[in-house]
């Protein structure tokens, strides 16, 4: 059924269609609307046979989810930013125990300075926590990915994060096609846990493992994700067959045939990138783009295949590995190992800074001339930075950087959304 609705609400509906039995969450912008929507559905009885648990922290939220999942019921939670970090210990634990929890990340920057707006620093911080990470490009895809995520998680006994850009997607009103319950039921069978806490068949879950077997345990976790590399495209294909639209998969190349320049990015920014690609293609520039949907497992082979014929690859990242540059770029470079081409890392959209078509076009043109630095900060206010560096050099007790920048920006702050 087609609906004009807020992204968060679309997700809530999608999750509800997956018939979770336990939902627990702790509020944090921009995740709030998702769980509010679910809470309402549970209260109203629309989402029957489901517990909605208001917990006291994200750490508890994921911990409750660990408990209910281990006890054999389908479990969902959602968070963002600080919340994800607050539950960090449990994030690793859930995957270590092989619990097929699905968690939405409404992607948001991490403080300090505290910032409620979108970038990917939060989910990227958990990239090696053993979860599968899927990044949605649109609200429709986000909706669809949740349905696929439960199926994937439960098939593999591995938790899945569905990452969607905070505000840009979570708070955007768009038209989405909400599938029917029967369609979802046909795609997503009831949860059959791999292991369950049951007095009829008692087991000890969560043993302490020493050096004699820890590597093997880790290897098996890795192996599970390697299997996911096969299952993700297969599920996307099945999904497309049943629901009549393409969603998910490992990567989504866009106009890469004959492209000399290929832009790689995650999430909603791909929409903007594709618009710029279209515009530049019209102007005769051989450019294309690739959206990475599955960041974990990282689709090395698919990316290599998609990128190997280009002259240059621009990786546009909504997060920063401080002291290094790009995170996604690392993976991309690995995918292209042995292939000589120019690679550029562009850090963009941090803390909600708008990524405009104009800036992107300028950027891609520079890339086309191979005039980019190895690491570029898109739309960096170089004056502001230079002034602050001067000031800091001048006084030992220079005070907090963020405040100083904001003070100086005063008049221009409105420009940055």
């Amino acid at each position, binding site marked *: 059924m087609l609906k004009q609705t807020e992204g968060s609400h679309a997700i809530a509906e999608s999750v509800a269609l997956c018939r979770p039995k336990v939902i627990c969450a702790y509020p944090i912008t921009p995740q709030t609307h998702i769980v509010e929507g679910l809470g309402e559905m549970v209260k109203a009885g629309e989402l029957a046979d489901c517990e909605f648990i208001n*917990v006291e922290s994200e750490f508890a939220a994921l911990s409750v989810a660990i408990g209910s*999942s*281990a006890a054999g019921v389908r479990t969902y939670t959602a968070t963002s930013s600080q919340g994800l970090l607050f539950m960090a210990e449990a994030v690793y634990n859930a995957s270590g125990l092989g619990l097929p929890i699905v968690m939405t990340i409404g992607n948001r920057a991490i403080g300090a300075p505290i910032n409620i707006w979108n970038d990917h620093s939060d989910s990227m911080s958990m990239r090696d926590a053993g979860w599968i990470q899927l990044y949605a490009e649109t609200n429709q895809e986000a909706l669809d990915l949740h349905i696929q995520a439960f199926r994937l998680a439960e098939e593999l006994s591995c938790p899945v994060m569905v990452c969607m850009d905070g505000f840009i997607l979570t708070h955007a009103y768009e038209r989405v096609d909400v599938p029917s319950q029967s369609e979802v039921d046909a795609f997503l069978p009831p949860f059959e846990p791999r292991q369950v*806490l049951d007095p009829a068949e008692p087991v000890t879950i969560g043993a*302490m493992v020493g050096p004699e*077997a820890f590597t093997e345990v880790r290897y098996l976790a890795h192996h599970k994700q390697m299997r996911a590399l096969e299952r993700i495209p297969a599920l996307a294909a099945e999904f497309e067959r049943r629901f009549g639209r393409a969603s998910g998969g490992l990567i989504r190349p866009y106009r890469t045939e004959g492209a000399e320049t290929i832009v790689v990015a995650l999430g909603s920014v791909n929409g903007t990138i594709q618009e710029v690609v279209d515009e530049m293609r019209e102007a005769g520039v051989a450019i294309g783009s690739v959206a990475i949907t599955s960041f974990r497992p990282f689709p090395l082979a698919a990316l290599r295949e998609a990128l190997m014929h280009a002259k240059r690859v621009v990786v546009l990242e909504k997060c920063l590995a401080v002291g290094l540059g790009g995170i996604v770029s690392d993976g991309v470079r690995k995918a292209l190992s042995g292939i000589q081409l120019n690679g550029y890392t562009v850090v963009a959209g941090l803390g909600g800074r708008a990524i405009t078509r104009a800036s992107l076009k300028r950027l891609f043109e520079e890339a086309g001339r191979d005039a980019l630095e190895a690491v570029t900060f898109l739309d960096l206010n170089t004056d502001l930075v230079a002034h602050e560096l001067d000031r800091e050099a001048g006084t030992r007790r220079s005070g907090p950087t963020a405040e100083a920048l904001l003070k100086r920006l005063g008049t221009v702050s409105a420009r940055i959304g």
Partner: protein
Amino acid sequence: MEMQTVRFYQTGTFTVGNRLLAPHERSVQAEAQRANALTSGHRACQGCGEALGARYAIDAAMRATGGKIVAVNATGCLEVFSTPYPETSWQIPWIHSLFGNAAAVASGVAAAMRRKGTDDVRVIAQGGDGGTTDIGFGCLSGMFERNDDVLYLCYDNEAYMNTGVQRSSATPPAARTATTPAMGPEPGNVFGTGKNVPLIAVAHQIPYVATASVANLRDLEYKVTRAMEFRGARYVHIHVPCPLGWGSAPADTIKVARAAVESGLFPLFEAVNGEIVSSTKIRRRTPTADYLRLQKRFAHLFQPGGEARLAHIQAIAERNIVKFGLEGTGA
């Protein structure tokens, strides 16, 4: 209280068993067919009170529920000594997640049981004092406040034992730990610090709160059993001496625990819906010094200059005796 109304027998109901009692009046631990939920082969130190307390409590819960329990265990000695791969000592469905989240994981298990329509399966969360009163306190309070259907068992050995005896908020004043050495003008743990989680639990007005000790098996079993009669959040805080951390003889584990109770330092009480409803009376009043002297962690108190701190501890016990009504007869 029930066990005090039992007719007089040679040993009353103080021993584990009593051949003269009807089988249903015997302790769970007396049963040849007891669950032995925590079975042999675990790696707890010799004379570990926590190993003993855990079996006492879980076996009682097993009897009370007809064997239908699931346990969630916080990180700590109990978890480490019972489940090193490839062997587990547990005979019940059991999960270990993290140090600080046992209560929350248990909330999740309970929610799942409700949704599966199997809420005859009762959920227990358990952890050490550190995992309960410190790092797990947020989750514990949340579980209480939501009145989730979980029995939380805290095995209080008064420090972080698994990491080598560091101070926790349950460490008593004057106790020497690795982080409160017996040095300086105020040797050992500082007086006037720490928190009383059983009373904090009472303040949550949850259905049932009790303190228990490995030295009083019947009382402990009664409390676990009673706790199982309630739905909602329940808390039983069990005093379990740690020979390693306390510097007591392994053979003295129960003796030490008994002295804590009989001196008034570890009051045994029960509270229902936020009101303290009974306390277990001291049978043979013991001076606190007799308790402290059994433990090397308090050795500095018996050196010259320790008198004032000894007196302070005695005063704490006496305040407990008045506050919890630990003297006298009856329930």
